[in-house]
């Protein structure tokens, strides 16, 4: 079961056990006091902005006539807005292609490191994890220059050996180039989550499997993969959230390739340009709110599908 559902599911039945265990603890007011600072800020900085955006999304501002209440009109507009729909479709496509590649790589690396079969495991683990410490801004700038046709080394090598090198910043390559940047940044992070989970599998399980004559591949498939389920769910959920709100990488590559990445290339980029370029605050709030909703729906769909498949 996934880490997140696990915790929320156990919440209802927990108090009974807990009370029994705590025995003579006085209830007192201390608990709420410890929780209060976080919850107050959570209300102010998490729920209030969401509420305010929801409120703004119900209005429209016109030069003549000022701000008027329009109900769900903005949502109707957004759901028919080709710019918004294309942005969402593009990040959905990105999610469907990039996330499986990234997670499969992270899984393979974690299994390889955990197998105990390779040399320099520590160096390799750290080296693959290091990109996570690099800001996405720097990562995108570096890859952007590496991709570049003028002084990127790939183009230089291609010219030197007279081999045609594709223009990675062209329209047909851009999504793949973005996927490469994001994969570079986050494979290591996901690998560490999976590797950490692998390290907690009890050794007796491997011994039992080995006694039964299972080889390394068989152990990986039948013992390690099932045990990795919660960790894989966690990485998958983080990836849903990450890819649907894709912004930094396309925003930065936009300066290098303005003709390829327009202001509505991803849904989030569209929301940004609505709020800050065209000053359509109400519509920007609508788009942000809808995008958040899309992400929550996809996240829960992923969770429910995974749990149902496990149950059957």
């Amino acid at each position, binding site marked *: 079961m996934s880490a997140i559902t696990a915790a929320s599911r156990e919440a209802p039945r927990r108090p009974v056990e807990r009370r029994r265990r705590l025995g003579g603890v006085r209830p007192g007011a201390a608990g709420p*006091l410890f929780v209060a600072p976080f919850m107050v800020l959570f209300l102010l*900085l998490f729920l209030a902005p969401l509420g305010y955006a929801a409120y703004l999304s119900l209005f429209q501002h016109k030069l003549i006539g000022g701000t008027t209440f329009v109900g769900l009109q903005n949502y109707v507009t957004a759901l028919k807005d080709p710019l918004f729909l294309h942005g969402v479709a593009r990040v959905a496509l990105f999610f469907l292609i990039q996330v499986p590649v990234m997670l499969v790589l992270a899984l393979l690396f974690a299994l390889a490191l955990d197998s105990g079969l390779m040399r320099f495991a520590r160096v390799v683990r750290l080296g693959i994890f290091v990109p996570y410490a690099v800001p996405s*801004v720097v990562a995108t700038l570096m890859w952007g220059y590496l991709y570049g046709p003028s002084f990127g080394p790939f183009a230089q090598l291609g010219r030197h050996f007279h081999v045609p090198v594709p223009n990675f910043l062209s329209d047909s390559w851009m999504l793949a180039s973005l996927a490469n940047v994001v994969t570079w940044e986050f494979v290591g992070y996901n690998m560490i989550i999976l590797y950490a989970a692998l390290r907690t599998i009890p050794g007796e399980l491997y011994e039992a499997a080995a006694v039964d004559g299972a080889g390394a591949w068989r152990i990986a498939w039948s013992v390690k993969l099932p045990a990795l389920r919660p960790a894989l769910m966690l990485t998958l959920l983080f990836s849903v959230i990450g890819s*649907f709100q894709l912004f930094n990488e396309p*925003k930065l590559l936009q300066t290098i390739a303005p003709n390829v990445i327009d202001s509505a290339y991803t849904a989030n980029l569209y929301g940004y340009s609505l709020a800050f370029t065209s000053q359509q605050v109400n519509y920007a709030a609508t788009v942000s709110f809808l995008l958040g909703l899309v992400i929550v729906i996809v996240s829960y769909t992923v969770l429910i599908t995974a749990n149902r498949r496990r149950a059957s």
Partner: protein
Amino acid sequence: MTTTTAPDRAPARTVPGVRSRRRTQAHRRSTPLTIAMLAALAYFLLPLFWLVIASTKSTQDLFNSFGLWFSHAPQLWTNVRQTLTYDNGVFGRWLLNTVVYAGVSALGAAMLAAAAGYGFAKFRFRGHGASFNLVLGAIMVPTTALAIPTYLLFAKVGLVNTPWAVILPSLINPFGLYLMRIYAEDAVPDSVIEAARIDGAGEARIFFTLALRLLAPGLVTVVLFTLVSTWNNYFLPLIMLNDPSLYPVTVGLSSWAAQAQNGGAGASSNMLALVTTGSLLSIIPLVVAFLLLQRYWQSGLASGAVKQ
């Protein structure tokens, strides 16, 4: 010191078994696997290698020499000096801003998450389950989708274009709270709290002198997470700040990159070299911190991801 030894505790239940397994497999090594993984490593280090090389070049050499090797006239120090002095040393200011934003956010977020995690783990009160589930649900809400609404709200109350606009939203880390609650359940035994109560210690004193020490390894994990995410944050400061003297290094570098792209890269200007050197300087502190503290990542992530 407890903080350096304790992180191994989270997965401690199984460590003996893991160790014995490592020993039995130590004699078998696979060369093809090692080679494949070294190839993967090369891919992950390639951009960083390029960045180090690029930082030693003038803008002209960036165009005229092969990208993956040094030019005839390496000038790392010239580039570093120019980066640090350009525009009255604004780059140093950006680095300092980043340190302040990331430091305050990380410490604040970790303390808030630790107190609340401890509260949720060790106390039962009205609204306990509901509030915890509310926060858990928030893990799914993307921070970037929240950023524009937060901007709109902050613009209303006059917080935009102040350091608080970047720090305040970073103080709330739902995943950090989740980690701290799980961590507190195991790391702070009920019997210890009970004994302290019998000795007459108040709840605040128990938390600050006892629980916080036991929570230290988990706390370090949350500090690291928030530190990296705030250090690397781009979207939030981009929309919140107009004043270049308030920029963190990410927004500053992207503004330089845009300048270099839009004609600033003329023969007299060394803008492109400043962007690459600035990029290198900005990642060094975090990469070093990362390598030194990497054990905490693993233990923290293990307790978060494995808990059934």
